[in-house]
C-alpha cells in the first residue's frame, strides 16, 4: 500500500479525479442554478440516489472498518453510533452534540473494555 500514497502518480490521479469526476457537478450546478426545477421528479431521484449512497458509505465505514476503528467491537461501535443519533434528535437536531455524545460513548466504552 505504501506506493499508493507517496508518488506524483497518486497526486496526478487525485487531481484528475477531482477535475473530471467531481468539480464539474459544482459547475453544472452553477450553470443550471438559474432555471432548474428543484422540485422536479428527475432531480428528486438524483437526490435520493446520492443520499442513499452516502448512508450506505456510513454503514460500510462503521460495520466493516478498514483500520483502527476496527479496535472496538462491532456492538460498541453500533451503540456509540446509536447514542450519537439519539442525542442528535433529543437536542433538536444538534449536530455538534450528537457527534460529541457518540464519540464519548465510543471512547468510554473502549477504555472500560480494556
Amino acid at each position, binding site marked *: 500500500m505504501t506506493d499508493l*500514497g*507517496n508518488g506524483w502518480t497518486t497526486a496526478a490521479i487525485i487531481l484528475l*479525479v477531482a477535475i473530471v469526476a467531481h468539480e464539474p457537478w*459544482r459547475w453544472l450546478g452553477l450553470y443550471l442554478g438559474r432555471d432548474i426545477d428543484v422540485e422536479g421528479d428527475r432531480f428528486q431521484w438524483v437526490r435520493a440516489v446520492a443520499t442513499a449512497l452516502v448512508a*450506505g*458509505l456510513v454503514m460500510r465505514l462503521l460495520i466493516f472498518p478498514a483500520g483502527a476503528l476496527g479496535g472496538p467491537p462491532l456492538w460498541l461501535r453500533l451503540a456509540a453510533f446509536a447514542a450519537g443519533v439519539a442525542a442528535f434528535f433529543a437536542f433538536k437536531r444538534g449536530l455538534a452534540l450528537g457527534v460529541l455524545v457518540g*464519540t464519548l460513548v465510543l471512547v468510554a466504552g473502549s477504555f472500560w473494555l480494556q
Partner: protein
Amino acid sequence: MYHVGVAEGSGVHERDEGEVADARSAAGMFLSGLAVSLSIPGFILFASAGGFGALARDAGLSIGNALLMMGVLFALPAQVVMVDQLARGGALVGAVLAVALIGIRLLPMTVVIVPFLGGSKASWPGKAVAVHAVAITGWIEGLRRLPDTPENLRLPHFFGIGTGLIVVALAGTAAGYIAAGQLSGPLAAALLFLTPIYFMLALLATAAQPSDWLAIVIGAVLGPIAYWLAPGFDLLLTGLIGGSAAHVLARNWRIKRDAGLGGPGPRP
C-alpha cells in the same frame, strides 16, 4: 442549532443590528465570513477533517497527497470513498464512478445556493471559484447567512466562509494525519469514528422530505448487505437501488396522501 458560536461577536451582529459602514464593505464581509471557521461548524469540520487525515494515513496515503485530496475535492464523502476504495485495492474506475456518483449531491446543493451568490450581477468566474466551497458545512453556513447579507456583498461573504473552511479543513487533515500515528487504540478509533457519525448526522440535519428519510434508512440497511454481496460495486448498487426505491416509495406515498385528502393539501 448553531446559534451560539465562538465567532458570534465578530460575524453575526453586523447584519442583525445597525451596520457599521466598515462591516458593509466587501473586505469586512469577507472577514466575517472567515470567522465562521472559528465557530462550532468550523470545529466539527476540523475534527472530521482530522478523521479523514487519520483515515488517509491508515490507507497509506502520504500527508502531501492527503492535503491535496482535501483541497481539490473538498467534500469529505468523496474523499473517504476514494481513500477507502484505494485502500481496499478496488479498481480506479470504480473509485472514479463512486466519486462521480457521490459528487452528484453537490449539483442540487450548488443549484440551491447559487441564487444567494449575488444574482446575475456577480461575475461568473468568481462564482465558479466560489462554488468549490459547496460541501456540507459550507452549504449549511452559506444558506444560513447569505439571505441576510446585502446582495452585492454575498459573493465576498461566501468567499470568506469558503476560504476559512478550507484552511480549517487542511489544518484538521494535517493534525489528524500526525495524531493518528501517536494516539492509543481507543483515541485513534474515536478519530476515525468522527467521519461516519458526522456524515450521518449531517445527512439527517439536511433531510427535509420523506424521500430523504427513506433514502437514509434504506441506504443504511442496504449498504452493508451490498458490500457483503458485491464489494467494489456496493456503493453504486446501494445508491441506485436504495435511492430509486426511496424515490418511488415517497412518490407513491405522496400520491396516495394527496388522493386520500381529496387533492393536494398544504405541504407539511
